[in-house]
């Protein structure tokens, strides 16, 4: 079991109760999962289920109350350059230009490099995200999409072994988001890093991920299932929706989030020990599970549609 690239075992996050005698509030517990090298994993769940805590813990910026994290045989203890982070709010340093922001990361990563080397390497990544023309602008002079590209360039340029993306496109409009998703696919294909990403957008997850972790609602959330996405790569937004399995996967995910995520609780009879999320491949489970019985594929129920709108207000809605 310790062969995995990243191994999280029985992680939990608890906050002290409101009063002295109140029981502690458990956000999630018994969360265990593995990430393989080179894998792109998305994690989806409703707000408050602790996705960001898991991500921040992996980044070393937060701590679990319980559990262990191991990466390549070494315990994760505090932040480090082998793990890069892209934050939702970009987190660029506003007094530096786009190029200087990327250089900031590259310089920290390779301290012995000459100025020229640092600049050339930074420029290469800024070019990859299509920002060659605006490298001397400050973040305030860039659009939201451009800022997030700089942030992505900074993270990829330091070549971390594990890249953590915390809802990187959450604050962007649908069109910009699509363009940057394509760029993310491109840059990820180029470097083949291991990526762990939080998202709220089902389509985005299907487009990008090898596996999607589905979290149940908090408190006492856990990762219920690990959905395998075996759509052929390279994928792109326009083509992927035409794939015969796309809607099968999409419906499965949406059904989980809308109908099942709130019902699934830690079962009384569930084994207390190490518990990994159940691997699921929606393409094959179609008729065998009861999961899809209340979601006819041919005629979507209107009530269901409404819930959909509530859940992903920003997503691009196909067809």
């Amino acid at each position, binding site marked *: 079991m310790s062969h995995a690239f990243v191994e999280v075992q029985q992680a939990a996050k608890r906050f002290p109760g409101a009063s002295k005698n109140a029981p502690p509030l458990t956000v999630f517990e018994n969360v265990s999962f593995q990430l393989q090298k080179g894998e792109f994993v998305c994690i989806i769940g409703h707000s408050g289920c602790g996705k960001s805590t898991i991500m921040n813990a992996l*980044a*070393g*910026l937060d701590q679990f109350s319980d559990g262990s994290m191991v990466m390549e045989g070494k315990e994760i203890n*505090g*932040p*480090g*350059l082998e*793990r*890069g*982070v892209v*934050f939702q*709010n970009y*987190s660029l*340093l*506003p*007094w530096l230009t786009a190029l200087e922001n990327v250089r*900031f*990361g590259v310089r*920290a*990563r390779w301290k012995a490099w000459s100025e020229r080397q640092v600049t050339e390497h930074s420029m290469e990544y800024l070019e990859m995200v299509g920002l060659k023309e605006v490298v001397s602008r*400050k*973040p*305030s002079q860039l659009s939201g999409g451009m800022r997030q590209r700089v942030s992505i360039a900074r993270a990829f340029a*330091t070549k971390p072994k594990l890249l953590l993306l915390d809802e990187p496109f959450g604050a962007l409009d649908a069109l910009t988001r699509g363009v940057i998703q394509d760029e993310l696919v491109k840059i990820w294909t180029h470097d083949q890093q291991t990526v762990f990403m939080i998202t709220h957008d089902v389509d985005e997850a299907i487009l990008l991920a090898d596996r999607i972790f589905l979290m149940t609602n908090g408190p006492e959330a856990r990762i219920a299932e690990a959905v395998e996405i075996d759509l052929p790569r390279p994928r792109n937004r326009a083509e992927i929706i035409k794939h015969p399995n796309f809607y099968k996967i999409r419906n499965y995910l949406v059904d989980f989030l809308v109908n099942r995520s709130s019902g699934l609780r830690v079962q009384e009879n569930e084994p207390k020990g190490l518990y990994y999320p159940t691997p699921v491949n929606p393409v094959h489970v179609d008729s065998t599970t009861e999961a899809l019985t209340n979601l006819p594929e041919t005629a979507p129920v209107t009530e269901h549609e409404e819930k959909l709108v509530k859940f992903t207000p920003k997503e691009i809605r196909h067809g």
Partner: protein
Amino acid sequence: MDRTTTEWNVSLNVRASVLAVLILLLSLGLWEGLNHAPSLGGGEQLSEYEQLLAGAEESAKVPPPSEILVRAWEELSDPFYDAGPNDKGIGIQLGYSLYRVLTGYLLAAAVAIPIGFLIGMSPLMYKALNPFIQVLRPISPLAWMPLALFIIRDSEASAIFVIFICSIWPMLLNTAFGVAGVRKDWVNVARTHELSSLKTAFKVILPAAAPTILTGMRISIGIAWLVIVAAEMLVGGTGIGYYVWNEWNNLDLTSVIFSILMIGVVGMLLDMSLAYVARFVTYAE
């Protein structure tokens, strides 16, 4: 579009300048006119008493602007003459004051900014030092003067100390405030890039807090310039504050008014120069 905008800007600036000049001329005119208002009855014969006084007024009046302009021209055309301890050019007096202000101010900055950094970074230091700051800060800087004179035994150094003590607080508090308010995200960027504490301080926290620190420095230089005048009136010897008081003792109100104006002009220049520096460290989020 651009053209109209530019035209509007220019015309606004021009109109503002015209208005300012009008206000200046009007107030100077009133001042001048009221001073020269003939105290003699229209066309009447002068009484013997009035003839003796040669038309002079009974109560002294504030000198009119024309006299002050003449005095300003005299003083400014030879600002650095030195004709003994009681008669030095305005340039020399301002030079003494500036020297004291800048020495005290720079010493204060050298102390306040590092301590402010410490307080801003460490909640422990903040809690431990805050009571001292709260008690020391409201003390009028001039109240320190007797103690400073007794301990330092040098009036020059005491004046510098007073400047030091009055300019330390805004810089200290603004630095602490700016440092404590640095966005957590930026600090996290430093952490995820494994920057050392020292590098984090210089590469992230200092640039992030710089605008707030500069604001504190700007407030401090203003206060220091206010205080130096009063301090020099107490200490005497040299400086613009002493000059004002000395001219008052000489009953030379023309010089008093002229030096008041010079205090204003120099204060404005000090503020402008710090505002200029602040432009280099401000950033838009």
